[in-house]
């Protein structure tokens, strides 16, 4: 442990607008000034205000202190502003601590005398802890404006276009022979009145012709390594040739899979899938006929037998029901558990559908199907009238029944999760770093996920997500530099046993084990030359500083720079 002989601590007492005045009186001031290593002790009414910050900077400058302790409220109040405080010459942003005597002393301990004693103990401990602090530097890494997009569906296309228009060179990788994905099946979007195929084809064309987009089709992902600013994906083309493509950030937009429902009666020709209906609407023109050429007069949509938590089916059913009523004069029934209208403008469309005569039937028990004279009889126990004490079993005779396909995680997801080191929950869709705050970010810094590989969603939502992920990438790459604090875990290779524990437990895949060290615990002499020993290494741009590896390391080779074991031990002292 370093000697604490040369510490010069500046202490600031924050009265928090009077909340702490009864504790921070003259006596306390004398007590603090008398503590070892304290060179100055200033007071302020409200240190977290802009004026307070200025006086903080002044105080630091005049006292020639090399570290600071703020006595006041919660550290969360001061930390952000203190680290941004440029006016503290020669003071490292991590060389400061906060003694929280407002929330944890003044407000929780009623009796004044006891509160004073406790406050003294807390302050004295923080001042001792301050002597253990070490400065933490900042580093920069160059980030070239290049991005990798995995997936050639509509999300990948949109993201690639957004990125390319922001002056970023994009390499678009797709397993398919051509870009376009599943969206090409759609004839209409619910929020766009006209046929969208020309618009969509134009998007595909733009991607193919864009000077900053390089499209690689029919490729297989074989490997992934690197860090923010230098990610490398190894791909294999159909001829078996391997190639490494580079990018500063990676955007995964690989989509989901569909499983058509053709079991039992659903295999009958009168049961069709939503994409088949889309195709019929697109090709059929004015007259809508079935395979035998008979006109179709009644269509039933069956929702929520599968995909009960996904709203794509509801949106598509309402959209197509409206079209069928308007252009083809069909009778349309929508049989569902719950219609999902939580989409932009969908509530209005739903009401319009009801006004135009689409009949919505709500069920609890799954409907039963039977064949009657070449038509389908859908028997459904309707529950909307149940609360009025009545219950009906409806029998809906229809020419066509649209039965939803099941949306399942792409079978590639497991491979992607393995290759990219992204956690894969039991459901099988790739996981966000944080469902509330970092939705399209993966656990690795610089890796983004959007679209169906996260969760199946309607097109307009997927497009918004594509833009969000693309703007996340742009935000990272636009500066050309990524600047970060070295408040991270650090591994001492001399103690490393290359046991891989840390790289397994790291939630952000920030640790690699590679031959880079002069010595590890196995090292012996006699290897001369360029020989390097295998040891774990933290990639500094990837580390979030959580410290999980530190406490997992069996040889205690890892230390957390901003919270060492010594500091933890000191904090728990009485």
């Amino acid at each position, binding site marked *: 442990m370093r000697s604490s002989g040369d510490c010069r601590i500046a202490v600031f007492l924050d009265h928090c607008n009077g909340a702490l005045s009864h504790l921070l009186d003259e006596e306390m001031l004398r007590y603090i000034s008398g503590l070892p290593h304290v060179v100055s002790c200033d007071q302020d009414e409200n240190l977290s205000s802009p004026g307070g910050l200025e006086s903080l900077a002044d105080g630091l400058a005049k006292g020639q202190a090399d570290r600071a302790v703020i006595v006041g409220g919660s550290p*969360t109040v001061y930390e952000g502003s203190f680290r941004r405080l440029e006016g503290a010459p020669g003071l490292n942003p991590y060389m400061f601590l906060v003694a929280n005597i407002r929330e944890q002393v003044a407000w929780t301990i009623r009796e004044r005398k006891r509160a004073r004693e406790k406050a003294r103990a807390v302050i004295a401990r923080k001042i001792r802890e301050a002597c253990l602090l070490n400065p933490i530097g900042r580093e920069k890494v160059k980030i070239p404006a290049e991005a990798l997009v995995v997936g050639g569906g509509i999300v990948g296309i949109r993201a690639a276009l957004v990125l390319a228009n922001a002056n970023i060179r994009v390499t678009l990788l797709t397993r398919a022979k051509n870009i376009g994905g599943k969206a090409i099946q759609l004839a209409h979007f619910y929020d766009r009145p006209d046929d969208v195929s020309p618009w969509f084809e134009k998007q595909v064309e733009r991607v193919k012709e864009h000077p900053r987009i390089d499209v690689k089709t029919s490729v297989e992902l074989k490997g992934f390594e690197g860090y923010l600013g230098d990610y490398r994906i190894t791909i294999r083309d159909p001829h078996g040739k391997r190639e490494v493509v580079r990018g500063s950030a990676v955007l995964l937009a690989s989509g989901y899979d569909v499983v058509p429902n053709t079991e039992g009666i659903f295999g009958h020709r009168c049961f069709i899938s939503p994409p088949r209906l889309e195709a019929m609407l697109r090709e059929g023109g004015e007259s809508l006929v079935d395979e035998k050429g008979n006109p179709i007069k009644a269509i039933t949509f069956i929702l929520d037998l599968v995909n009960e938590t996904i709203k794509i089916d509801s949106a598509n059913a309402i959209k197509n029901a409206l079209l069928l009523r308007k252009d083809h004069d069909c009778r349309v029934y929508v049989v569902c558990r719950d219609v999902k209208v939580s989409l932009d403008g969908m509530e209005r469309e739903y009401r319009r559908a009801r006004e135009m005569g689409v009949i919505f039937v709500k069920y609890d028990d799954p409907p039963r199907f039977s064949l009657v004279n070449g038509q389908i009889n859908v028997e459904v126990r309707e529950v909307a009238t149940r609360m009025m004490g009545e219950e009906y079993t409806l029998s809906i005779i229809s020419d066509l029944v649209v039965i939803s396909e099941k949306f399942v995680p792409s079978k590639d997801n497991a491979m992607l999760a393995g290759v990219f080191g992204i956690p894969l929950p039991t459901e099988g869709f790739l996981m966000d770093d944080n469902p509330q705050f970092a939705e399209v970010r993966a656990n690795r810094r610089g890796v983004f996920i959007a679209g169906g590989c996260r969760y199946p969603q309607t097109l307009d939502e997927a497009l918004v997500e594509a833009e969000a992920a693309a703007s996340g990438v742009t935000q990272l790459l636009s500066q050309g530099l990524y600047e970060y604090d070295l408040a991270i875990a650090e591994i001492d290779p001399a103690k490393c046993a290359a046991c891989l524990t840390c790289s397994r437990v790291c939630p952000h895949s920030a640790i690699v084990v590679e031959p880079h060290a002069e010595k590890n615990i196995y090292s012996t002499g006699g290897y001369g030359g360029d020989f390097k020993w295998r040891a774990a290494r933290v990639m500094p741009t990837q580390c979030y500083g*959580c410290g*999980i590896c530190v406490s*997992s390391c069996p040889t205690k080779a890892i230390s957390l720079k901003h919270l060492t074991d010594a500091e933890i031990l000191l904090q728990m002292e009485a």
Partner: protein
Amino acid sequence: MESFSPRIVAFCCDKSGYVAADMAGKLGISLPETLEIVRVPCAGRIDALHMLRALENGADGVLIFACHEENCQSLTGNLMVKARIGYVHGIMENIGLERDRLELCNLATNNGAKFAETVQRKYEDLKGLGPSPVK
């Protein structure tokens, strides 16, 4: 036994427990003054050694405040600490310490009342258990 005031070391995850502790203060709930709060960036930072050291250094009880399961910012930090607590419970039984002296509490940032309740309950429990024999 009237004067015995158990010392509690509370490890608080910066993402949930520490904010909840602050909130307990903001709500004005009184807490025992023998409570020492240790702020860690993630509950996964807390080593088995830290828990044992706390007991060795004279704490009568150790509380660990972590995020709810499947809600950890670092994905597995709260599960890692749960596993370590199980391990330390084994050690504690072997050396003749009550398991109840070490406990995990999962909470969210807005659970100030739960934080205070847990601390107060533990305080009363530890009063019943008596001073730690380690001291």
